[in-house]
């Protein structure tokens, strides 16, 4: 039936019921004009209307039925066939279901089908089963068994079909085939990859153990049984904070904090992986917990287990290899999660270091780049003044980047760093003594030593300057701007005073210093420095194409920082062209694409921006792999785009992935991690998850305050988001303070006309609106809109929301036609956006309806009443 038919049916029905009963039949005959089906339908409706009741059901009353329907005894269900699948035999039975081997009759393929018998016994179990299906559907990874199909039997027993893995348990596989340690570790590495993937999807397995890790004939592992897996987001659910029932988990593999307190995190899986690794290497469990009570167990697992090296002699490894493996295992098995590898990522990294027989790995391009550069440019002096020096430089950079990159517990681990220390000492001291240095080799210590070394290079000003610049860039990246500044300025002084003249080096110094100024929020100075550098490069003959491209890109970057988006776009388009010509898939090109995406975003060209970003992400994943900060940067950018579009679920997903990568790489107390957390928090604010957003913002603020002065514009973003949380809480005074600060910070940094100043104004206006100070609110909204109209495209969402809010402020002052005109202006923009943010559209509709009603135009008001279903959960 078409809805037009439905409308006809309804309208005839309403007309008929208003007629006296005797006239109805005649009316229907006439109105239906021979359409007997319609007539019959209407007659039946009228009859039913006359009876005045639907079925007996309604008379019985809902609670009565509810009472009857619940609490019947459960029954066992045995099924032979489901759709195309025929059941063969039971593979296993556990707390969370029965698994059958089944055959697909049309293709003869074997599959595993899991049922949840007595599903109605507990809605919580049913929910958990449904969650497992959801989890599996979300996971697509070669080392995770796949979901094929799911459904419910007629008696509502839920089931799902998944890949049947014909293989051996990991530990059996390892034991029976006497593999070498490297083979075992390579296999274990794949398992870790699968777990890391699951974590990137925010899923914690919680029940990793050999029987859930099967190895297929081809030697590839498959993770099974996500029956008690948990999504990270749901962890605050109190019902999940219970200890694992012994029915469900295997105490030998469960992390102590979970067994004891019910605390769960990525570290829960790290622990289980540690047990699996330990068992794979030694053939024994670290703790024999089967025979103990939980209380005894609680004490036992606080102790360190025996070192694997004492048990696994059969693998025939060297002493030093074993000492690494001991650290790897025991660090995964720490009772305190904070002392464990904080992520599978961190575990994987150390595993890789071990497998590559290196203390630490560097970013290959940085290492090659820097060492190569120094060698290439100063071949003669290097050879003359000693190869060792160049090596020292290379290695400082090597370790510095590595340590900076992985400034997590993994690398702070004393036993682990011993090897590095020894290595470093030998380089710094020029001998091979066994003794390690007494001083802790932190990144900054290394850098400071590098600087001291560099300072002693009297008479080699070119090398000295390059060292300063290199070390300065590292300080810059670490957020140590003062040190970076000193070094860049020294480099510039050296290069300017050099003879013969070295204008290319001088240009590099200027660009580096300019980028630093930009990081420091001094955008005007930044632009002037980079322009000086660029112009030197462009005047130099023959032209240095690489340098020109990179300097152009840097100029685009500072232009963006100072809010000159059209100019930046032009410059960056040029840079993209230059860099593409040099190498179509270089790091530099990817960075420039991202910059261009920034500029396009600010110009409101979201589609173009997303396209550029996606291209950069693809490029970066190829260059760096999945978990590099540059990939995180691409992800957070995509997240911000989705946020702007109102796709909050996607935005949250991107942001969480980015934050996880950044935290694993730099540690939590890093300005990048803080900024990205704040961006995630803003999405949460948009989703109405204020409770989750606030602690993120406060901690991000704490971190950023360590790196920036209280008057730095970097803080404004956090204050702005925090203000929105406070508005929601009704803490209006605090919100006002924050928004005032936002306005002043952005004014100082970017000038009165910057659109961000408008954001602060509009938000401050909203606080006035909430506190019923309508004239102040109106004034601020008007100021913000005027400002935006000058710098943003006419259909920008901020303008739209500003208009709707302005309409509200005017409505409250009873100037209805004027109010409606503003609301309408905002609404028209919102409606045109491809995916308008639902809450603002609904607010606008509501206001329009109210406005027209107030103007006594109910027919117009009706247009905006309803229409947008406000509750529509799935299913």
């Amino acid at each position, binding site marked *: 039936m078409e809805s037009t038919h439905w409308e006809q049916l309804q309208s005839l029905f309403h007309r008929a019921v208003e007629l006296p009963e005797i006239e109805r039949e005649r009316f229907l005959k006439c109105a239906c004009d021979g359409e007997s089906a319609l007539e019959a339908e209407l007659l039946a409706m009228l009859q039913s209307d006359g009876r005045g009741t639907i079925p007996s059901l309604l008379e019985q009353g809902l*609670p009565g039925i509810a009472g009857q329907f*619940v*609490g019947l005894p459960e029954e066992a269900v045995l099924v032979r066939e489901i759709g195309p699948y025929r059941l063969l035999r039971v593979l296993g039975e556990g707390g969370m279901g029965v698994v059958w081997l089944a055959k697909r009759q049309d293709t003869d393929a074997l599959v595993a089908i899991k049922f949840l018998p007595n599903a109605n016994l507990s809605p*919580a179990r049913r929910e958990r089963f449904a969650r497992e299906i959801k989890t599996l559907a979300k996971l697509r990874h070669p080392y995770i068994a796949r979901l094929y199909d799911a459904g419910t039997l007629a008696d509502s027993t839920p089931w799902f079909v998944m890949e049947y893995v014909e293989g051996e348990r990991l530990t059996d596989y390892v034991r029976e085939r006497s593999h070498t340690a490297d083979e075992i570790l390579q296999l274990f590495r794949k398992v870790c990859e699968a777990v890391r993937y699951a974590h990137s999807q925010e899923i914690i397995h919680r029940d990793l153990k050999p029987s859930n890790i099967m190895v297929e004939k081809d030697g590839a592992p498959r993770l099974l049984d996500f029956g008690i897996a948990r999504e990270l987001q749901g962890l605050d659910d109190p019902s999940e904070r219970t200890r694992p029932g012994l029915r469900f988990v295997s105490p030998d593999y469960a992390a102590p904090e979970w067994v004891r307190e019910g605390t769960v995190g990525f570290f829960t899986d790290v622990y289980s992986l540690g047990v699996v690794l330990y068992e794979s290497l030694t053939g024994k469990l670290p703790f024999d917990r089967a025979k103990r009570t939980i209380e005894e167990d609680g004490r036992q697992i606080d102790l360190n287990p025996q070192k694997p090296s004492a048990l696994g002699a059969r693998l025939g490894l060297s002493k030093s290899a074993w000492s690494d493996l001991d650290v790897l295992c025991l660090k995964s098995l720490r009772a305190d999660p904070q002392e464990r590898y904080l992520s599978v990522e961190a575990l994987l990294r150390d595993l890789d270091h071990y497998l590559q027989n290196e203390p630490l790995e560097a970013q290959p391009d940085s290492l090659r780049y820097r060492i190569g550069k120094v060698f290439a440019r100063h071949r003669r002096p290097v050879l003359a003044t000693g190869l060792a020096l160049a090596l020292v430089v290379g290695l400082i950079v090597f370790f510095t980047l590595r340590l900076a990159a992985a400034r997590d517990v993994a690398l702070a681990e004393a036993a682990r760093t011993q090897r590095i220390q020894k290595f470093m000492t030998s380089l710094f001291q020029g001998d091979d003594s066994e003794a390690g240095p007494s001083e802790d080799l932190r990144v900054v210590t290394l850098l400071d030593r590098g600087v001291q070394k560099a300072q002693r290079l009297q008479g080699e000003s070119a090398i000295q300057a390059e060292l300063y610049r290199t070390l300065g860039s590292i300080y810059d990246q670490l957020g140590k701007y003062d040190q970076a500044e000193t070094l860049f300025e020294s480099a510039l002084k050296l290069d300017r005073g050099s003879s013969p003249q070295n204008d290319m080096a001088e240009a590099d110094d200027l660009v580096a210093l300019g980028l630093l100024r930009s990081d420091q929020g001094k955008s005007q100075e930044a632009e002037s420095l980079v322009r000086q550098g660029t112009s030197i490069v462009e005047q130099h003959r023959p032209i240095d194409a690489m340098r020109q491209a990179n300097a152009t890109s840097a100029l685009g970057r500072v232009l963006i920082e100072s809010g000159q988006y059209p100019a930046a776009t032009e410059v960056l388009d040029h840079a993209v062209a230059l860099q593409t010509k040099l190498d179509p898939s270089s790091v530099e090109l990817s960075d420039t694409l991202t910059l261009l995406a920034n500029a396009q975003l600010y110009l409101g060209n979201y589609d173009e921006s997303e396209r550029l970003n996606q291209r950069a992400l693809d490029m970066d994943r190829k260059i760096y792999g999945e978990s590099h900060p540059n990939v995180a940067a691409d992800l957070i950018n995509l997240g911000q785009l989705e946020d702007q579009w109102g796709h909050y679920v996607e935005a949250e997903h991107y942001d969480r992935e980015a934050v996880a990568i950044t935290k694993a790489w730099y540690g939590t107390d890093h300005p990048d991690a803080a900024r990205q957390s704040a961006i995630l928090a803003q999405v949460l604010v948009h*989703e109405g998850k204020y409770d989750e957003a606030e602690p993120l913002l406060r901690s991000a603020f704490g971190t950023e305050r360590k790196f920036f002065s209280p008057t730095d514009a970097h803080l404004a973003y956090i204050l702005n988001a925090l203000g929105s949380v406070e508005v929601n809480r009704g803490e209006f005074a605090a919100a006002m303070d924050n928004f005032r600060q936002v306005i002043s910070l952005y004014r100082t940094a970017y000038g009165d006309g910057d659109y961000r100043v408008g954001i602060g104004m509009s938000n401050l206006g909203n606080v006035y609106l909430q506190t019923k100070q309508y004239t102040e609110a109106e004034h601020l909204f008007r100021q913000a809109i005027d400002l935006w109209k000058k710098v943003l495209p006419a259909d920008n969402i901020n303008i739209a929301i*500003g208009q709707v809010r302005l309409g509200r402020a005017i409505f409250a002052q009873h100037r209805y036609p004027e109010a409606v005109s503003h609301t309408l202006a905002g609404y028209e923009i919102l409606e045109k956006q491809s995916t308008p943010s639902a*809450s603002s559209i609904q607010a606008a509709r509501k206001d329009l309806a109210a406005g027209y009603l107030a103007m006594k135009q109910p027919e117009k008001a009706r247009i905006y009443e309803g229409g947008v279903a406000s509750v529509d959960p799935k299913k």
Partner: protein
Amino acid sequence: MPEARKAEFPPIDTVTPFDGNASAGSKQALDDLFSLVYEELRRLASMVRRNEANATISSTALLHEAWIRLRDSPPLASTSLAHFKAIAARAMRQVLVDEARRRSARKRGGAGEVVFVGFDEAAAEIATGDHDLLALDASIHELATHSPRQARMVECRFFGGLSVTETATVLGVSESAIERDWRAAKAWLGSKIHPEKHQQTPD
């Protein structure tokens, strides 16, 4: 030349979102809410059954108790009582229909491709309402294909016990529109479920 650094978007400040609306961009929150309500309703319904105090507890009271227990949970933070009831209505419908379906499937045991072995057939007496309830559910589904709003309205009114005013608020239409739609939908559903005279359920 210093190493090129990845340029992240400087964070994009946004305006404070509109509030006071459960649908504020969060389907996730609604899903969470739905499962909470579902479980709570089952608990309450089974209490009703155990006490056999059908007469003393109305569906409105049932929902009200659920609301009191759940309103402090995070997904409900920005949900009004009327919206809560509307969501609960859907959960209630599902609870009841699930049960009815389960029991009539057992009644038909052995039919089709599935073999059931019941341990306690005797306990599986089918309530007289089963048939009607399933028919009603199917008809509401059909109604939804013609007019999703009217289907939603029936769900709210019947399964959630929402008043006309509450239903009007939730669906964002006027009360008179609800009254009109309710009468037509009721008549139509009645004609679907009992096409001829009011007949006894076959069991």
